[in-house]
């Protein structure tokens, strides 16, 4: 097959996959946080990503350097997240999972349409003005923006992990995730924790979106792809497993690229979903074994 005929291209796919995976991992990280702390599966995750992209695009049009724009997009999304929390999420937190899925799904539709109204339905992109590295006589290309995105994603992930470990608010967030009632009894203002967690997640998505618009293209209805991928990464990694999220993100990015290369682009997503099913079945099987043991 073509993969073996030209082994050099597998290196290309691997590099690209891992670099891409870092951006997905970033969005997934936020989703895992919200899921773990608030027990909410945020189905508007992808829309947050796209909104972050559009904010960077708007800033870029106004003459702001795109790399300065990344934190600005994150800050803007932080407030969007805060507002959405106080309008919608506060009403559904600690309720049935089904309700939260419906509510965040509704939020996703609303955000799509609002972005469509405000920014237009056109495909947009930001050119960060970076070049490409060539290896092996042009056979392998590495986009500098992807490398930069990779490191920004890793650094952001590290900062977040440190924030959760070291700061008081971070500790409160982790306490809430472990046991909401116990945290409340011990004086943690869980409402504030929820608000911060949700806003923090939005901010992470905003940063991821800023990287997406510089690497690929965005349009108001492209969010679903990011929601689905985040969801998948979190499932594969398992909840509350930070390192797992990062590795699952990188791995999925690479696997996806290989699947697209070998099976054709039409099976790229299908392959990932099949993988998800296999992992879930495998995990279920493992859990059953454990139950047997407990008996």
């Amino acid at each position: 097959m073509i993969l073996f005929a030209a082994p050099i291209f597998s290196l290309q796919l691997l590099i690209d996959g891992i670099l891409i995976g870092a951006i997905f991992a970033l969005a997934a990280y936020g989703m895992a946080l919200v899921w773990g702390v608030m027990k909410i599966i945020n189905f508007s995750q992808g829309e947050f990503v796209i909104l972050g992209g559009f904010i960077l695009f708007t800033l870029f049009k106004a003459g702001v350097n795109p790399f300065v724009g990344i934190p600005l997009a994150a800050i803007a999304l932080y407030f969007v997240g805060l507002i959405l929390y106080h309008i919608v999420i506060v009403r559904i937190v600690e309720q049935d999972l089904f309700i939260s899925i419906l509510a965040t799904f509704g939020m996703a539709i609303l955000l799509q349409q609002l972005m469509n109204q405000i920014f237009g339905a056109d495909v947009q992109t930001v050119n960060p003005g970076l070049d490409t590295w060539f290896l092996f006589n042009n056979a392998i290309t590495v986009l500098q923006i992807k490398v930069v995105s990779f490191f920004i994603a890793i650094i952001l992930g590290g900062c977040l992990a440190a924030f959760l470990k070291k700061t008081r608010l971070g500790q409160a967030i982790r306490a809430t995730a472990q046991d909401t009632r116990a945290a409340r009894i011990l004086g943690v203002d869980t409402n504030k924790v929820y608000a911060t967690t949700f806003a923090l997640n939005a901010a992470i998505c905003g940063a991821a979106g800023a990287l997406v618009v510089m690497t690929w293209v965005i349009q108001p209805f492209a969010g679903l792809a990011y929601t689905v991928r985040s969801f998948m990464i979190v499932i594969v990694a398992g909840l509350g497993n930070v390192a797992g999220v990062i590795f699952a993100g990188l791995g999925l990015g690479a696997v996806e690229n290989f699947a697209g290369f070998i099976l054709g682009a039409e099976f790229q997503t299908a392959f990932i979903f099949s993988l998800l099913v296999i992992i879930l079945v495998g995990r279920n099987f493992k859990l059953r074994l454990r139950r047997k043991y407990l008996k």
Partner: protein
Amino acid sequence: MASKQRFLITLVVSLAVFSLIFAGPVWAKVEGDTIIFGAAVSFTGKYSTNGKHTKNGYDLVVKRVNEMGGVKVGGKTYKIAIKYYDDESTPARAGQLADRLIKQDEIKFILGPYGSGPTKGIAPITEKYKIPMVEGNGASRSLFNKGYKYLFAVLSTSEQYLAEAIHLAAEQAKEAGRDPSSVKIAIAVENDPFSMDIRAGVVEDAEKYGMKVVIDDKLPKELTDMTATLTKVKALKPDVLVVSGHSKGAALAVRQTAQMKVDVPMLAITHCEAADVVGKFGGDANYTLCATQWAETMTYKDDWFGFAGDYAEDFEKEYGYPPPYQAAESSAAVLVYIDALQRANSFDTEKVRDAIAATNLQTFYGWVKFDETGKNIAKPMVLRQIQKGRYVPVAPTKFASGKVIYPRPKWVDR
């Protein structure tokens, strides 16, 4: 709780009263001296940009025809107007609105929506009520194999979009002293009816020349990245890369071939103008071949606008941007109606339908002549190449104002 409920009820009732007051009179097909057309066009949703182009195209004709006195039917001159609804970019909604236009608003002449999807939503409705629809934005050939009698399309159907690129590649191969059958084709199209039609047209023509299709990828709807496909292009080195995936596909193809420095002698795509690849990517967009329904450099003319170039000027003066072909084909659809109404000399929908079917009209957009399935068979697709940031028609030869640059210069030389 009770007060909340009461508030809600009051709100609903007052909204209903409010909308009744402002709904105005029911629109009839002809009101006084105005003929009213109906159209469900996407003002919101993912087609809203092209929906705007469609509406602008319609409105420009309305304005022009009314300025020139109007339409003469049965010895009386009528002004024209269009009643719009927003189909929210969904076929089902477009169908409902067509029903509403015909049944509730009693409109007898329907203009098409934007896109093959919504057009497919409306066609069964107009067929059911035997109301003619002339459309300029539904190109999928699946619209024309259902035996619809009241559907007429002024544009070229989608399988013709990029077939010309295959002829061009064959010509170039011959010129270079190679057998056209040695040409290798790579296809990457979105998995939707429109792009799959394009693929069918390309495959059909490639088979005619005995060319080999080395890559045949169907891109997902939620396409964000073409790296895997483009890596394959690098590995297999085809002569022609065909990409179709609306604006998203166009933007990604141009951006990522440049970023990954994919050297392919010919890159042919659709929706260059809609994605504004020149404005977004500048020099990276050069040498890309773009399929277009219409170009302002074409030499067709009519009594309403003059030459294609005149139309472009008028359009830009009115709306502040040069007309994309989506606007031009929408304008042409209205012109077909005007012409048919005058020839039918009646408002009888059957007579108007027959007059439309018998259309043989030159417009600024091109010749319009329908076959029995309702598609326009008199107008070819044009292929333009982006050269130094400008769109230069290069094929078919009849409309070419420049020569195609083939192969595309390698990225290292650019």
